[in-house]
């Protein structure tokens, strides 16, 4: 792919991280287009990002209303065709409600909203999002959520583990996955998972808030660079027109 990547960044009423994602895309020389939730098409996009926030006020359940927004049909079609989709924080919650990822995110076990830097143990999963990262490495990203406790049925958890789809786990600075390092009570310390094909990635942390050394860290850039490398290697997908 010779041109720069184009990302569609979804905006629901209450989304709050869309400009941060667009800012990082700009830093990398990418094109970012903000797509309002009532739109039915994503336009020419190489990837779709569902940012954090409180879509529709998180009323009823996180993501429960957002999943029925018109744009989500286009996201589902994009994902089904193998297009890269990233959901961060509230975006992860929406992807779970929409059935694009298994499980749900429940209220943090301590009931507090947790806003902090968090160490994460990386497991390199298939697909666009973590290919520039090494399994076993530890990255630091901000978390900022009140409802991040990952929950899925025992069968689903086993399937995620067996198929190598747990991408990120909460850990301490040395990469030890312990109860103390788990900021919300997530099962198996799960902070991020991918779908079966690996093209849909949901994570509670915020990679867009760790893309400039001046604000504390650049580990989030690895996720964006993974996507860029993958797009270069996948011209057929990258040239998709929707």
């Amino acid at each position, binding site marked *: 792919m010779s041109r720069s990547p184009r990302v569609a960044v979804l905006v629901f009423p209450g989304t709050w991280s869309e400009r941060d994602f667009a800012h990082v895309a700009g830093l990398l020389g990418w094109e970012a287009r903000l797509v309002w939730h009532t739109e039915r098409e994503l336009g020419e996009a190489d990837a779709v990002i569902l940012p954090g926030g409180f879509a529709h006020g998180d009323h*009823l*359940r996180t993501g*429960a*209303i957002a999943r*029925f927004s018109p744009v989500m049909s286009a996201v589902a079609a994009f994902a089904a065709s193998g297009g890269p989709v990233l959901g961060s924080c509230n975006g992860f919650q929406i992807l779970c*409600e929409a059935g694009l990822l*298994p*499980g*749900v995110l*429940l*209220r*943090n*076990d*301590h*009931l507090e909203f947790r806003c902090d830097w968090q160490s994460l143990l990386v497991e390199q999963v298939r697909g666009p999002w973590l290919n520039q990262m090494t399994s076993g490495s530890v990255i630091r990203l901000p978390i900022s959520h009140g409802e991040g406790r990952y*929950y*899925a*049925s025992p069968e689903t958890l086993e399937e995620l583990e067996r198929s190598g789809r747990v991408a990120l786990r909460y850990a301490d600075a040395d990469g030890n996955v312990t109860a103390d390092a788990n900021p919300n*009570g997530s099962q198996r310390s799960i902070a991020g998972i991918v779908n079966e094909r690996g093209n849909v990635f949901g994570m509670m942390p915020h990679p867009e808030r760790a893309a400039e050394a001046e604000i504390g860290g650049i580990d989030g850039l690895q996720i964006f660079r993974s996507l860029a490398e993958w797009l270069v290697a996948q011209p057929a997908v990258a040239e998709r027109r929707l």
Partner: protein
Amino acid sequence: MRWLAEVHIRLRPGIADPEGQTIAGGLRALGFDSVDDVRSGTLLRLGFRAPSRDEAEDALASMCGRLLANPVMETADWELRLDDEPVGEADG
């Protein structure tokens, strides 16, 4: 016919409910020492029209299945009754 439904959405048994646990702790702190179980949930009161009870029940099942509850973590049940004072038709 207009119907009133109270829909109860509950976390599935076995899923930790920190809100319920916190409320239980608050009650025990007030001296209600025997409280050993509180489960939180959502109560929704719905008014809607349907030509029969069967169709009202079917509508509620569909509403719960599609939006009101997430079956991964929640169950939903409801109480349904005829609204004998429909909105806009009752006095005062």
